[in-house]
C-alpha cells in the first residue's frame, strides 16, 4: 500500500472499519513509513484535543438560567 492509499484510509483505520486484508497492508506500511506514522499519531492527537477542548464552556449560572426558562416554557405548554 502506498502513502496516498494509507492517507485515504486513515479514518477507516482509526474507526476499526478497514477490512482485514487492507488493515494488515495499512499497518505494514505504517510500520515502515515514519511520515505516515506521524500523520496517524498527529491525527489521533487532534482527535484528543477536540475531545478535551472542543466544547463551548457553560457555567452553572448559564445552565440554571436556561433550565429556569425551559421549565417556564414547559409550564406554559402544559397550561394550554
Amino acid at each position, binding site marked *: 500500500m502506498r502513502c496516498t492509499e494509507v492517507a485515504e484510509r*486513515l*479514518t*477507516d483505520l482509526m*474507526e476499526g*472499519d478497514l477490512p482485514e486484508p487492507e488493515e494488515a497492508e495499512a499497518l505494514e506500511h505504517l510500520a515502515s513509513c515514519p511520515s505516515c506514522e506521524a*500523520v496517524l499519531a*498527529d*491525527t489521533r*492527537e*487532534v*482527535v484528543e*484535543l*477536540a*475531545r*478535551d*477542548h*472542543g*466544547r*463551548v*464552556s*457553560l457555567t*452553572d449560572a448559564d*445552565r*440554571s*438560567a*436556561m*433550565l*429556569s*426558562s*425551559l*421549565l417556564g*416554557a*414547559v*409550564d406554559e*405548554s*402544559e397550561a394550554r
Partner: protein
Amino acid sequence: MANAVDGRFAPSIHLRVESLFVVHVDAVFNVAYRVLWNRSDAEDVVQATFLKAFTRLDQLADVSRVRPWILQVAYRESISIVRQRRDVPIDPATFPDTAALEPGPVDLLVAADIAKEVSHAIGRLDPNERMAVVLRDVEQLSMREVATVLGVGLSAAKMRVHRGRQSLRHMLEALEVRG
C-alpha cells in the same frame, strides 16, 4: 442548578425534563453554538430542542438513542435559524472566547490557551466538516449516529470527519498547539 420543583405543575414532569436537560444541555448548546456562533441564538435552540424532547418523553425510553435524537433536533433547529437569518456572524475572528476557564495555576492557563486555539480552529473548518468533527470527536457520537444527525450516508459522514480532522491537524500544526 435551579430547583425545578416549584409546585406549579406535577413535580414528575419538571424532574423528567430536568434530568434530560442536565445530561444533554452542554452537547445541545455546543452543537447549536457551532452552527450559529451566537450564545443567545444557541440558548433559543436549547429551549426549542428540549421543549420538543419534552413532548416526546415517552418515546425516548431507549437511553442510547436519546443523544443522537436530541442533537439531530438541535442541529436542524440551528440550521433552520441560519436559513431564516442570513446575518448570522460567521467570521471566526469575531468569535468570543469560548474557552474561558476559572483563573488558576499556570498549567490551567496553558490549558486555556490550548482550548482557545482548538476552539477557534474548529470554528475555521468548513461548516459541514465542522459539525461532523463536533459530533464525532467532541460529542463522541458513533460514526453511524453522526450520519443520522447530519442526514447523510455513512460514507459521506466519514469523509467529512476525515477532512475536518486533517484540516484541524494542519491548522493546529501551524499554531504549534499539538505536542
